[in-house]
């Protein structure tokens, strides 16, 4: 030995606690306990609790009795609930199509090289960052029946002659809500799809161009198929969020006019919290579950399939 040993390492007897954590299974258990406790207490337990609640007739402060499926039967025959279901599907479907189309377009624009690209990208995400409720108020103010800046604009562009009562008319209200949701969702789609686009090697497009493919063909035969996995995940993710949306409708119309723009969540809030019919509200929000479950299953299967490949 070149170096003289001045201090010799003596393996000390490992402490019991330490040795326990050397076992992967124990360590994993210890690391997962906090997560499991929190998720169990505030996801699994409320879920079970919600189901139990939905088969009673309890109200705020009144424990209530078992009533079987009476709440579900009641909402099954409830006209406003029917409207909410219709609205939710319409809202989810229409906004998803627009968000995907506009988001993809924006992503393709952002994928080019231009000055101020990083800056533009940062600013584009603002609608997604800013608290939805707060930005929705800006839209509500823009759609205000009397002081609408949009009416002012359209009037001065000679597109309209009288005022448009954006949030007072059921159809226009729905359109307004859809616009706000698209506005909020496009950045998310654009940035996620941009990330997907950036993983596609430019050499593929160059090779296709040399092979004689025109820009449109290059998009359809190269870019789009390679982008599809990311697109699928983003779309499924967005569908879940949109389907269970609450904030935009709550702020813009509160479900009005005349309960015409309710979604599952806003109607559940109105019944469960507004009127205090806890069990019926729980039943309404749980009615979302089968559809959400279906989307989650599709997503899980899709992710698994992508992973296998």
């Amino acid at each position, binding site marked *: 030995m070149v170096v003289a040993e001045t201090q010799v390492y003596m393996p000390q007897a490992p402490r019991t606690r330490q040795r326990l954590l050397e076992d992967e299974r124990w360590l994993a258990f210890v690391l997962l306990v906090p*997560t499991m406790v929190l998720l169990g207490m505030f996801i699994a337990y409320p879920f079970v609790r919600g189901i139990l609640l939905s088969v009673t007739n309890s109200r705020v402060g009144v424990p209530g009795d078992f009533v079987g499926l009476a709440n579900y039967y009641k909402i099954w025959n409830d006209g406003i609930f029917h409207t909410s279901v219709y609205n939710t599907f319409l809202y989810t479907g229409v906004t998803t199509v627009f968000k995907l189309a506009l988001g993809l377009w924006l992503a393709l624009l952002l994928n080019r090289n231009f000055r101020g690209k990083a800056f533009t990208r940062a600013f584009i995400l603002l609608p997604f*960052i800013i*608290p939805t409720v707060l930005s929705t108020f800006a839209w509500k103010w823009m759609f205000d029946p009397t002081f609408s800046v949009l009416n002012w604009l359209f009037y001065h562009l000679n597109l309209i002659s009288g005022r448009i009562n954006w949030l007072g008319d059921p159809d226009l209200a729905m359109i307004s809500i859809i616009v706000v949701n698209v506005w909020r969702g496009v950045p998310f789609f654009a940035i996620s799809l941009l990330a997907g686009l950036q993983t596609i090697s430019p050499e593929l497009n160059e090779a296709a161009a040399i092979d004689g493919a025109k820009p449109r063909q290059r998009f359809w035969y190269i870019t789009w198929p390679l982008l599809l996995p990311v697109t699928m995940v983003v779309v499924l993710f967005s569908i879940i969020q949109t389907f269970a949306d609450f904030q935009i409708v709550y702020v813009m119309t509160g479900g009005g006019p005349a309960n015409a723009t309710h979604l599952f969540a806003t109607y559940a809030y109105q019944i469960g919290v507004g009127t205090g019919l806890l069990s019926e509200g729980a039943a309404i929000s749980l009615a979302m579950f089968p559809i959400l479950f279906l989307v*989650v299953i599709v997503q899980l299967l899709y992710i698994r399939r992508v992973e296998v490949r």
Partner: protein
Amino acid sequence: MIEGAIWRKWAFFYLPMALFLLFLLFPFYWMVITSVRPDGELYRPWNSVNYNPFWTWNPTWDHVRYLFEETLFAAWLWNTMFIALVSTAISLVCGVFAGYALSRLNFPFAGSLGTGIFITYLVPQTLLFIPLAEIIRNYRLGDTPWSLILTYPTFLIPFCTWLMMGYFKAVPKELEECARIDGASRWQAMLYIVIPVAIPGILSAGIFAFTLSWNEFIYALVFLSSPEQKTVPVGVTSELIRGDVFFWGPLMAGALLGSIPVAIAYSFFVEHYVAGLTGSVKG
């Protein structure tokens, strides 16, 4: 890129880009201009003559002053900040630990636990808010910041876990093995080697979780009732509207000021935020 004539570039790039920017950013401009415009200018019908809604020559701080003097806005800001920071911290600790366990340790049911956490990641808050409100009441947490600090992690932890799993998987196994041979226990190897190497991931998860909890609305709306306990989104919604009357000036000022903390946090960590955002969907 293969470029065509100049006009094509204008038609297919600059023009659409400008329209997108206008669409996405105009509401913020509108927020700013409204919050400094005197009431007299605000409430003019859209068809009144000689009215230019996009600019004001008489900017005023009245709305901001009203916000801080007549409402509890400062308290709401503080509440939101406190709740967002604490719940983010809790979620990061839990998410980093769980992500580490799920991505780097072999143990029974690892796969199904991972799937389970992924599913809770997709559970929207609106599905459970009614039974949760009951539970919060039973635990006597109602109308306290703790009702949110304990419930926000339910949607933050799954996200943090999911994101951290991706980052941890990218850390070479040998680093940890080497540390363990060097004399570190599994716990020490995680603490001194793997976690420090995954700091960018933790930053991404943290900034994303912070914005998510700052933005959360329905739990805050349902669990908090007294004005001094509220968060910014709920306070602005419930305290600046009296019946049908909207105080648009203070409302927009509140929306603006309530957005600034997240915007600042975001501007410092744009790259991390984007990494978190794209990581959250890619997994």
